[in-house]
């Protein structure tokens, strides 16, 4: 009977095991098909036509959108197919910007890769690329339509995964473009800055905004005191591009690199996360007791906050007023150095290293700007940090790890797992749990908050109540929950939302990672937690010091924010 579900790919027999399309079957024989518009987690679009295959009767079909059938005999690489693929690439290149050397996505571009693989040398058509105006209105991402190949990955990411709907196709034929509604600037569109479009873009048509130049200038300025904080997810996202294992915790190397590049002091956003846990847990307990503004939504994720502001303002009161770890830490460190800058320094410049494009927007929010300027002066994504490291000539993997600086160099494991979906919830649960025994911690870990599932639910006993908790990543999934709550179909007490599927580890500021490998980064953070001596935020000795020191009487001013309905 086994023969019934066999087919051959380039002569190699392969069993069909419920694959949704020929691409999945082909990948099992170790052949990589050229594709632009196929992502296993998005709907099948079938537009690039690069994955055409040929069957034994000479019929052509797109592998991405053809169901495998027993008895099929397909070839993936015939003369005809190669000719068509080369023609398609040539057609794309004729219309495309070919200034690869100055492109922000050079080296990571699929079009560049495939053009090289297929040896495209001559383009027989005039280069008729229209110099379409770019859009750099967003603080998070930059659009360069002249580099767009209209694969639609960004559109599906924005609409299917994130339910944001900021961009879609406009016009038709060779005039087709990707556009916001009525071509308004991205910054004025429903875009929330999550950057998942940029992560999906195979070319340089949507890239993360590069803010590194200003940071270099500040480092170079002897009168500027430059501090830096490293977000949890960055340490497990940076490694692979710099020669480490995929999920290796590289925080020590990052600190070393930053010191060598010239940052004056380097800290860990996990410390800020400890503050967030304490504030948010307190707020949660208070709201549960008062029964006010339940469910409580976490508000660490700036893309999520914008999503609520732009699409569901009626839920603004449900957002936690506790600032994100980045904004808490930045406010505190700015406060600390306000009156006591080191000798010879005239100003303080604080940079946050984030896995996230939306953080660039958060840093600029009026709520986090004081008369001295923004608390976070600049946000640099992991991708930009990699560029800076490479620019410095530092051989990253050969650095000796260093620890973050004192006096703000202690953090808990709870703060570190913020970078993965479920981490914030787990940290809050550790805070409100009755004890810190190993069993309790293990119990919390296994309540169902861990894992890469997009929606996770857990029931947590709390006093005489049972708290209903949901952990969701991906804005589309979050919207699903919002709708259920609105209709009364579901009730929750606490909902953790991260805009990016899997949490910050798959933030758009990180080097691109396939969905398959996302969990690896999460495991890296859980490993870091396992080896940390302090597990709970409230056990971080620095907390007491801060609450009784610099933050005394200023807790609300420094650590909280009210997101209010605009307009």
């Amino acid at each position, binding site marked *: 009977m086994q023969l019934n579900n066999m087919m051959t790919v380039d002569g190699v027999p392969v069993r069909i095991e419920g694959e949704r399309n020929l691409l999945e079957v082909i990948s099992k024989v170790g052949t990589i098909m050229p594709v632009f518009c196929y992502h296993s987690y998005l709907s*099948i*679009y*079938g*537009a*690039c*036509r690069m994955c*055409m295959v040929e069957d034994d009767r000479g019929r*052509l079909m*797109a592998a*991405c*959108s053809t*169901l495998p059938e027993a008895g099929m005999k397909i070839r993936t690489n015939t003369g*005809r197919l190669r*000719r*068509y693929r080369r*023609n*398609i690439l040539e*057609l*794309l290149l*004729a*219309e495309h910007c070919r200034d690869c050397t100055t492109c922000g996505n050079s080296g990571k571009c699929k079009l560049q890769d495939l053009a090289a693989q297929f040896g495209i040398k001559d383009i*027989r*058509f*005039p280069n*008729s690329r229209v110099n379409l105006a770019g859009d750099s209105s967003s603080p998070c991402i930059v659009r360069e339509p002249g580099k767009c*190949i*209209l694969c*639609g990955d960004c559109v599906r990411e924005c609409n299917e995964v994130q339910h944001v709907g900021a961009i*879609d*196709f406009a*016009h*038709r*034929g*060779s*005039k*087709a473009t990707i556009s916001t509604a009525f071509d308004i600037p991205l910054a004025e569109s429903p875009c929330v800055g999550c950057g998942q479009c940029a992560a999906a873009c195979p070319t340089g048509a949507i890239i993360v905004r590069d803010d590194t130049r200003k940071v270099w200038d500040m480092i170079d300025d002897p009168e500027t005191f430059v501090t830096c904080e490293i977000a949890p997810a960055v340490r497990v996202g940076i490694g692979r591009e710099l020669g480490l294992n995929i999920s290796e915790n590289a925080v020590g190397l990052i600190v070393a690199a930053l010191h060598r590049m010239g940052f004056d002091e380097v800290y860990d956003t996990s410390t800020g996360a400890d503050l967030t846990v304490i504030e948010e847990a307190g707020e949660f307990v208070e709201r549960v007791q008062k029964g006010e503004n339940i469910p409580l939504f976490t508000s660490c994720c700036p893309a999520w906050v914008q999503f609520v502001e732009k699409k569901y303002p009626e839920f603004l009161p449900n957002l936690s007023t506790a600032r994100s770890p980045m904004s808490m830490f930045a406010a505190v460190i700015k406060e600390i150095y306000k009156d006591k800058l080191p000798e010879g320094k005239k100003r303080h410049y604080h940079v946050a290293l984030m896995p996230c494009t939306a953080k660039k927007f958060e840093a600029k929010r009026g709520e986090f700007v004081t008369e001295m300027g923004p608390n976070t002066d600049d946000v640099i994504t992991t991708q930009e940090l990699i560029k800076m490291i490479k620019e410095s000539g530092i051989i990253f993997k050969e650095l000796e790890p260093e620890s973050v600086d004192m006096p703000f160099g202690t953090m808990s494991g709870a703060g570190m797992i913020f970078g993965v979906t479920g981490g914030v919830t787990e940290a809050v649960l550790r805070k409100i749990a009755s004890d810190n025994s190993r069993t309790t911690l293990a119990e919390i870990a296994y309540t169902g908050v861990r894992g890469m599932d997009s929606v996770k639910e857990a029931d947590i006993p709390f006093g005489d109540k049972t708290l209903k908790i949901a952990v969701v990543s991906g804005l589309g999934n979050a919207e699903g929950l919002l709708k259920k709550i609105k209709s009364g179909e579901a009730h929750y007490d606490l909902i953790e939302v991260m805009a990016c599927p899997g949490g910050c580890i798959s933030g758009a500021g990180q080097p691109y990672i396939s969905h398959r490998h996302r969990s690896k980064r999460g495991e890296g953070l859980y490993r870091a937690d396992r080896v940390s001596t302090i597990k709970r935020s409230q056990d971080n000795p620095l907390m007491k010091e801060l609450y009784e020191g610099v933050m005394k009487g200023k807790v609300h001013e420094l650590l909280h924010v009210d997101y209010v309905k605009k307009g």
Partner: protein
Amino acid sequence: MTRLMSRQDLQNLRNVCQQALSLETKKILVCGGTGCVAGGSLDIYARLKAMMEERGIPVSVELAHEPHDESVGLKKSGCHGFCEMGPLVRVEPQGWLYTKVKLDDCQEIVEKTIMNGECVERLAYKQNGEIYRKQEEIPFYAKQHRVVLEHCGHINATSVLDYLAVGGYQALEKALFDMSAGEILDEVSESNLRGRGGGGFPAGRKWKSCARQKETPRYIVCNGDEGDPGAFMDRSVMEGDPHRLIEGMIIAGIAIGSSEGYIYVRAEYPLAVERLRMAIAQAEEIGLLGDDILGTGFSFHMHINRGAGAFVCGEGSALTASIEGKRGMPRVKPPRTVEHGLFDKPTNLNNVETYANVPMIITKGAQWYKSIGPENSPGTKAFALTGNINNTGLIEVPMGTTLREVIFDIGGGMRGGGKFKAVQIGGPSGGCLTEKELDIPLDFDSLKKVGAMIGSGGLVVMDDKTCMVEVARFFMNFTQNESCGKCVPCREGTKRMLEILERIVAGQGRDGDIELLEELADTISNTALCGLGKTAPSPVISTIKNFRSEYEAHIYEKRCPAGACSKLRRFVIDPEKCKGCSKCARNCPVNAITGVVKKPFTINQDKCIKCGACKTNCAFDAVREEA
């Protein structure tokens, strides 16, 4: 009007209407099709009405319930198809057809024809010196066989009563009361009706496959997004006999088990939309649409969706996306539309002409239907006949009629004595056929064998003054503009093909261009996502195949053999004939002509912009155009 609650009610009303119609012997039918309306037919209608009323002639606009034989029916009919001769006015009972009627003719029509029963001969159609008074005798009509278009031009297109009077909704009655859903499906399958939208897929098979789907609701969708340049078969049905389409769709609903129908009409057909709206409202009013039709418990509701002017929305999945309010882009298949169509539900999608065939099949039976045309492509097909022939317009012939009959008998041969060169069939997705293929029967399979397709039924006849490279460029320009922009081969490939064709007709063609066109055509037709893209290169492929030498003349000799490409025109002054008057030089807008007075002038070919002003202005016929 009262709502019909039973079969008896329907039969009673039909009897009343039939009686009224039989008493209404004198009738003037003013064509209310788009072509004639554009020619002013509505003003003619109003003038006739006013004049008749002035003279005390009883005018009946609607079918009266209590008719008297003195009154003259004045109706707005659907398209007669002979649009070139419009505005058209048909006179009954004589069957006369007045052509190119003007407002000033109204008085004569009223006084001579209506009051005295005389024919206004000067308005009758003339061909080769012969006068054809009766519509059916005109060669254009004589060879036609009208089934789908039988009522177009003959009944009041805005009244359900007129439709009932000619036997309308009989098929629905039969389907509701005398047949099971399975029997309807079998009858349609047995008739071998094939989809008239282009592909010729057997309608019965599609219906059955949709009826088999487990999921509900199922939808009946009609493709009225007729977008081929020059094609207007479906428009004529929607404008001229809208109830026929509605009836066909309701029957499909009964057979497939659907209670929702959508008609997708291009927005460029405002009159069709208006007539359909009117027809749906009337059918709802008398209870032939809506809940519990004729007390059978079967409900069917109909909706009209207007397309926003995109050719690609005629593609099934783009069409359903457009109805759903999304961007009209084809999606990958499977799943097929019958499985996951409109709103992701099982959907039966046919075009207007296909549904319009259904009532006749149900009433007269599959055997009758199969008696028309060849066995594998039975029935008739409507074609829009245009180009360099004498009689252009809308025709309907049995499948299997040859091109020669269509062009030379119905179409009246080439206009202005030109020589037949080719006929483009199937619109921008089709190809051209030449002299040697004139005797091929027009049916799905025979055309497929020669690499052409019926498509939706556009026929553009071309004479020897037509440049085939330019024809290919025209169609490529159309598809490029209408490409949705989704898949790379169609979006970018057609753009490049157009670019190459443009440079060839402009005299900038290069060695290798024909081969590059062929290579692109091969890539596009094999890799494009949807039918529009896959067939986009067809006009180029077929013109290269049949007229390669014309391409070569453009590229290598910078010459257009048909003399049609303006950029390749070449004007020369015959020194023998030139008197040196300098008039040509003075009229040349770019000072390309120089010379000394009283001596022959010359044209600088590098400066010349081929406008022809010199030729027009030469009093001695000394300027010659070289092909």
